[in-house]
């Protein structure tokens, strides 16, 4: 079987293969996490694809607004949020890695660090939005800012779900619910968390960089 063999039937659940990212065990062709989380992830992707379509339609109808829009946004805030989310995602990779080695306490520490870094996002967003409001940049300032508020706050809602999920799996890991043989719940929470990373990578580019 080649590493990219797409047929799950060719995979062996009893002979884990080395992951490209870590020293963990990854079974080729498997479905990470659980089916439920993938339904959720694909629904979120469809939802945001529709929102992005609305963004592009607004963009082609108001090219000037989208050309000058990023000037009033704080790129540093968007950058710091990105760094928080990507670093938090890294911690979840380590958390899953740890549980695969039956290191539940280490896994809880990584999840906790991931939660702390994840909370950096709403914290920065709070100060960022306060700054905008004080400087008269609100949803009524223009179509670019209306799109910015709608899409980024929508993303923040999804990050909130993700953080709640991380709290839940932290508790479950701490109480011994996950082992190296059974950790799909922890992995599912991590997958959802990484999905919010992907969405923010796009949003960061749309609102803070692209002109």
């Amino acid at each position: 079987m080649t590493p990219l063999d797409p047929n799950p039937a060719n995979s062996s659940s009893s002979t884990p293969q080395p992951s490209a990212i870590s020293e963990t065990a990854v079974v080729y062709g498997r479905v990470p996490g659980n089916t439920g989380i993938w339904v959720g992830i694909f629904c979120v992707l469809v939802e945001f694809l529709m929102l992005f379509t609305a963004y592009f339609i607004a963009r082609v109808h108001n090219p000037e607004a989208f050309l000058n829009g990023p000037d009033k946004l704080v790129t540093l805030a968007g950058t710091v949020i990105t760094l928080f989310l990507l670093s938090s995602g890294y911690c979840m990779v380590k958390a899953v890695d740890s549980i695969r080695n039956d290191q539940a306490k280490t896994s809880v520490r990584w999840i906790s660090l991931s939660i702390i870094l994840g909370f950096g996002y709403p914290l920065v967003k709070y100060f960022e939005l306060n700054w905008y409001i004080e400087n008269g940049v609100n949803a009524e300032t223009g179509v670019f800012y209306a799109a910015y508020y709608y899409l980024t706050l929508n993303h923040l809602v999804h990050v909130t779900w993700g953080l709640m999920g991380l709290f839940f799996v932290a508790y479950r890991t701490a109480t011994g619910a996950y082992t190296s043989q059974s950790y799909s719940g922890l992995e599912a929470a991590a997958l959802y968390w990484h999905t919010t990373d992907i969405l923010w990578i796009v949003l960061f580019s749309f609102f803070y960089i692209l002109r």
Partner: protein
Amino acid sequence: MIGNTEKIWLSLIGLTLLGAVLGETGNTGWPLTLTVVVLIFIKGSIVIDYYMEMRFANQRMRNVLRLFITIVPILVILSFAWGEEIRQLTTLN
């Protein structure tokens, strides 16, 4: 010694900082647009393949995720290259 996970994380951080610097230059036009498109695709691919560990996982699911981070850059290019045509197509009256 830096492990693979740390290298992946550092590469994402580096690409993010590169994007931030580009955003601060205030540049416009095709060079910026194409760079942004490439950054979205590369960073998205890294998260999918390494953070989500989809590289060796079920390839259909991986392809759906990759389709998402391919469609978005295509939309960027379409809106940039044919903005006026899309505007006419999406005008109601």
